[in-house]
């Protein structure tokens, strides 16, 4: 088998001396769609934050490989430039830079060259239309005063424009209305292809409709307690986490 896009080996992660992940293994191949589920507070956000290199989370044991390279010690911006992308559960508001200027800067930062203004602007407008974000938002400060759902759309807009190889989506669907979830899934499908991979954290099966899920991982108390195919999603949404753990 070819090298997986992302490989997590025996990962232990602590925050403020408290261990949250106790040895997580996970592999995502090129083009695959993975789903990460689990009760609140079990460490799902911690896992993707650590993978993205959030300095507040300390990896005490284990390795993270991306595109075959050990990135355990790499800075967050290096990981981003290598093609990793995190859609935040709670995106930040940054005054002083407009959404458009920010995305242009980010695209320049990850690709190494500043996108041409007019082509960039046209593409941005197209993607905004696709996501149902009004054009005027391009001129607003990054996420400032955006509603919860608008912030999630802003995340996916950044994904669509930055075109990473791996997208970690942390509860992108929460806060989105039914139609918006569908719009966002459509957007994700437009970007997803045989090379690009996804790790989706969700409490809701809706966002997965229309995506071919390859693997489902269930995280509980800092450990992966169950792995399986798409059928696990239905089991969990119908029977709760108790049902999947019992079978384990």
């Amino acid at each position, binding site marked *: 088998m070819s090298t997986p896009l992302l490989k997590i080996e025996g990962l232990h992660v602590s925050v403020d001396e408290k261990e949250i992940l106790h040895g997580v293994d996970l592999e995502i191949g090129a083009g695959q769609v993975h789903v990460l589920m689990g009760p609140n507070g079990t460490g799902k956000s911690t896992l993707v*934050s650590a993978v*993205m*290199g*959030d*300095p*507040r*989370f*300390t*990896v005490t044991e284990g390795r993270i490989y991306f595109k075959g390279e050990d990135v*355990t*010690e790499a*800075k*967050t*911006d290096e*990981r*981003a*430039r290598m093609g990793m*992308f*995190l859609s*935040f559960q709670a*995106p*930040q508001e*940054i*005054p*002083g*830079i407009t959404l458009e*200027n*920010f995305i*242009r*800067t*980010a695209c*320049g*930062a*990850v690709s190494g060259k*500043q996108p041409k203004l007019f082509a960039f602007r046209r593409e941005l407008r197209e993607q905004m239309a696709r996501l149902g974000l009004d054009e005027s938002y391009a001129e607003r*400060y990054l996420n400032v005063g955006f509603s919860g759902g608008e912030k999630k759309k802003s995340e996916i807009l*950044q994904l669509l424009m*930055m075109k990473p190889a791996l997208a970690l989506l942390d509860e992108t669907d929460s806060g989105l209305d039914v139609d918006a979830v569908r719009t966002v899934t459509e957007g994700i499908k437009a970007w997803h292809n045989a090379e690009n991979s996804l790790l989706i954290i969700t409490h809701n099966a809706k966002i997965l409709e229309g995506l071919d899920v390859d693997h489902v991982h269930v995280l509980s108390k800092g450990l992966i307690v169950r792995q399986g195919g798409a059928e696990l999603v239905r089991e969990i949404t119908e029977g709760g986490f108790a049902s999947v753990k019992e079978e384990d």
Partner: protein
Amino acid sequence: MAAFDTEKTVVADIDRTVYDIKDKVDAAYEVSSGLTEEIVRDISREKNDPDWMRDFRLKSLEIYEKLPIPDWGPSIEGLDMKNIVTYVRPKTGMSATWAQVPEDIKNTFERLGIPQAERSGLAGVGAQYDSEVVYHNVRKEVEDQGVVYTDLESALKGPYEGMIRDHFMHLVPPTDHKFAALHGAVWSGGSFVYVPAGVSVEIPLQSYFRLNAPGAGQFEHTLIIVDKNAYLHFIEGCSAPKYNVANLHAGCVEIFVGEGSRVRYSTIENWSKNMYNLNTKRATVGKGGTIEWVSGSFGSHTSYLYPMSILAGEKSRMEFTGITFAGAGQELDTGAKVLHAAPGTSSHVTTKSIARDGGVSNFRSSVVISEKAAGSKSSVSCESLMLDSRSRSDTIPAMDIRTDKADVGHEAKIGRISEDAVFYLMSRGLSEEDAKALIVGGFAEPIAKELPLEYAVEMNNLIHLEMKGSIG
């Protein structure tokens, strides 16, 4: 993984290359350093002062000798008056066209963008080099409205002498503090502006002050008199190349805002890091009038700068918007003062201060509401941002409210750059420096948008240097 490194510097030292180009010192006349009666008489003679001005200088010198060095603010021990050359006259008279300005001096101003700015949207421009104004010009249509914009020395020899005598250092008397007295004794250069009643000067006037000679002092005096129901926007810019000896700037700005008039005074101060900037600015505002101060302080080694507004007329107003950025080795003590002396007056102060790399950026404010100022309102808000744990930013508010019919508010916030925000930006490929510079830029933005465009751009460049144009 390493914990977030709060010690790391964020915004690199301002790229001073443009400001730092030193011209060869080639002065026509220089007094010996230190301050004596002889020197003051020399300056006065050299300037052909009227007698009253010579006497004013000598009186100021006496006061200077009696007053103590201020002991309540940043240390000015590094400043030895004996080593400051008070008067350096460049080897040129005043010109009304850039073509007449000597090549090297003109080049300095070209590099700083002054003549271009004049072409592209200023009503008049004055340029001072060391102690003297080398250029002054005002658009004909503005002159035709009766607006006077000239250097103070020329004005003293013309029909406005009486007006100057009635106003010069009446708002900031030499007894105000030691450096006001020094200013009174050795002042040189600066501008005189008179706007007649009912005249609105639609485009700004700008004076640029450049201190080139090492170890010199600059003591320009700006006197602005705006008659009733008039409008003026005056812009002041300052810079100097860096030398290893201390330079002193003890300028003075006096603004008289007439009834129903509005004056906006914008400054970007970017003195080099060896400058002691002990500057005094004051305005008095007549009935229904408004003074607006917009102030950016980036340079200097040590600054004492608290523009004061005297709200003398009923329902007069002041607004102050300021930003101060202190880096390594800098101690910038800035703020605003206001005296509410009439009923129904209002003041509104908004400032931001940033400290990095061991710099100290203090915000000092003083609000006095007198017995006569019933129904007045004042709000002061100061936000500071510390970029590392070695830097300091203190807020020192003083309030003296003598009427119970006043509405007074004070708000101070001290923040650090949010690690969450830095992580968010870095997850989009921005380096840590760029992420932080962007956040600092966002913090400063509400102030930047009050500045004239080219100054807002300059300020952004000062802050975003690390980003080298990557942000549109």
